[in-house]
């Protein structure tokens, strides 16, 4: 039954509805695939018993004709989402053996619609990273390798487990989160589709917080259509998150195959970086050509503050993180290291519980918020953020429907290859994606081709607020033109 793992979510939905196979068979096929792929380290916890129980329940509902839109579909859940009764760690030692007594809104909506949980997926500690190397459970392997090489590459991050598992056919789709590119960059590194919806589209309730004004949940999937199906279930208003937006969730799947004729697509000149690999430049041109032949109009646009997005992000995100992560005190949950007094208990717990990257970001965040530095750093960064958002608004005001850019400045790299000496080297991975979080916009990464070494590369489409449907229509055009990419199995 292993071939069941190669179906898309849309194909599996049809097979389940036609009773060609059961959810239990589909789930078992994926559980076996997970077992055989442990070397990838994509899952940090497997929940086979719960998966089979959920699959049986889905099969009953399907038999009764009472199936939800994701009935019987086995998914992986990033370990940042609180799952009731199932250990949730954000891949940090400081959460230890935390077992939530509640369920995140996004996952509860997936279960409401009939999906099956296979387990929890690896990610960078507290979603801080671009290579999934900062997880306390160790790095994740990318199912893709350079042609003729057996070096293990990173899957990107922070949703590296999600991207790796979807690409390696271990789950039919996965939840992910994106603060500066954590859905789109790993999707691009693994030839999967990842969408970060508009800020406010998915509830953040029950998701371990990193930077609250930037964090947004979204799916990683095997196709554009699959990502549309997943987002429809994940999105929606939640009174428990005051930033969650109270507007109806459209049927995103209906946007797939819709004509893009007459749409105006912006090509931002500031994204043409010095030293950008020629392959990425070529891919970008190919993407523009595909959209043009589908009837879209391509125009050059300017987003003048682009180069300031990443530095502004590295003030705003650590500042918010330092505040959000203040809750890990060794008192209410998680790890505790003893001290002679309460302050020492806090200090020892946080020194022992946080990894190097998290410590660094909490400290820089503390610094930029501290007395005497707030105006020079944090306030200035928030002003720059206003300017970044205005760049996009000016562009959309000129009638631009979406913006096409490369998703990443390079293909996947080897474990340990980047950021060893200078953290900024790793941060540059998010140069094309981070502007979207700063402006709260939706962005989708779609596989578009391979580099000379046979590694996947992706394109990004950026949309107007709450116009995810446009991104699905355009993404489908790219997917149809570029085809889909599956890694050769080596694990």
């Amino acid at each position, binding site marked *: 039954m292993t071939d069941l793992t190669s179906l898309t979510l849309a194909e599996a939905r049809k097979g389940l509805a036609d009773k060609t196979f059961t959810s239990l068979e589909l789930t078992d096929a994926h559980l076996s695939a997970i077992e055989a792929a442990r070397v990838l380290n994509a899952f940090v916890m497997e929940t086979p018993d719960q998966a089979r129980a959920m699959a049986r329940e889905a099969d009953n509902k399907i038999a009764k004709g009472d199936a939800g839109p994701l009935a019987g579909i086995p998914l992986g859940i990033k370990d940042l989402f609180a799952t009731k009764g199932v250990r949730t760690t954000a891949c940090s030692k400081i959460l230890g053996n935390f077992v939530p007594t509640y369920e995140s809104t996004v996952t509860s909506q997936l279960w409401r619609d009939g999906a099956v949980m296979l387990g929890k997926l690896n990610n960078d500690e507290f979603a801080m990273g671009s290579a999934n190397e900062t997880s306390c459970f160790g790095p994740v392997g990318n199912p893709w390798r350079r042609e003729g090489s057996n070096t293990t590459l990173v899957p990107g991050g922070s949703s590296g487990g999600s991207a790796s598992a979807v690409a390696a056919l271990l789950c039919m789709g996965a939840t992910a989160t994106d603060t500066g590119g954590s859905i789109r960059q790993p999707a691009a590194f693994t030839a999967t589709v990842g969408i970060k919806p508009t800020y406010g589209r998915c509830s953040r309730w029950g998701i371990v917080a990193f930077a609250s004004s930037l964090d947004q949940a979204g799916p990683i999937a095997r196709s554009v259509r699959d990502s549309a199906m997943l987002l429809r279930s994940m999105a929606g208003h939640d009174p428990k998150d005051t930033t969650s937006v109270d507007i109806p969730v459209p049927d995103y799947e209906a946007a797939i195959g819709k004509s893009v004729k007459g749409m105006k697509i912006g090509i931002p000149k500031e994204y043409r970086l010095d030293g950008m690999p020629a392959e990425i430049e070529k891919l970008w041109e190919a993407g523009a050509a595909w959209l043009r032949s589908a009837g879209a109009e391509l125009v050059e646009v300017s987003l003048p503050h682009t180069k300031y997005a990443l530095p502004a992000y590295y003030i705003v995100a650590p500042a918010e993180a330092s505040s959000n992560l203040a809750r890990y005190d060794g008192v209410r949950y998680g790890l505790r290291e003893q001290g002679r007094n309460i302050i020492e*208990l806090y200090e020892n717990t946080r020194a022992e519980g946080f990894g190097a990257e998290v410590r660094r970001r909490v400290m820089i965040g503390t610094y930029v918020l501290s007395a005497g530095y707030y105006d020079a750093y944090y306030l200035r960064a928030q*002003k720059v953020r206003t300017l970044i958002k205005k760049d996009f608004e000016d562009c959309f005001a000129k009638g631009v429907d979406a913006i096409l850019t490369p998703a990443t400045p390079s293909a996947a790299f080897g474990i340990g290859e980047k950021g060893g000496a200078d953290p900024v080297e790793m941060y540059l991975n998010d140069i094309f994606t981070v502007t979207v979080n700063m402006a709260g916009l939706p962005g989708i990464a779609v596989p578009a081709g391979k580099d000379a070494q046979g590694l996947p590369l992706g394109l990004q489409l950026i949309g107007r607020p709450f116009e995810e449907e446009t991104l699905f229509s355009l993404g489908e055009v790219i997917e149809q033109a570029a085809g889909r990419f599956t890694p050769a199995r080596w694990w």
Partner: protein
Amino acid sequence: MSVDAATVRRIAHLARIAVSEDEVPHLQGELNAMLAFVEQLSEVNVEGVEPMTSVTPMQMKKRQDVVNDGEIADDIVANAPATEGHFFLVPKVVE
């Protein structure tokens, strides 16, 4: 701007993260690399620009000022490292 060793120790204490003496030079280098990177923001003209406070322009939703949750003390302390009944245990704070 850059930070010296004393500032690194001060930030670590503010952040409630224990830092040993031999970690300070390394941390100082990393923090200064980040500060050098964000330095380029000083060239942006932000005269008269409002700082962003809400990424999606919307009215803050307000809920009814009523009790809508509670009576879950068992849940609240379920993951605590040290408890007694429904209390969190900490080292003595007040002498």
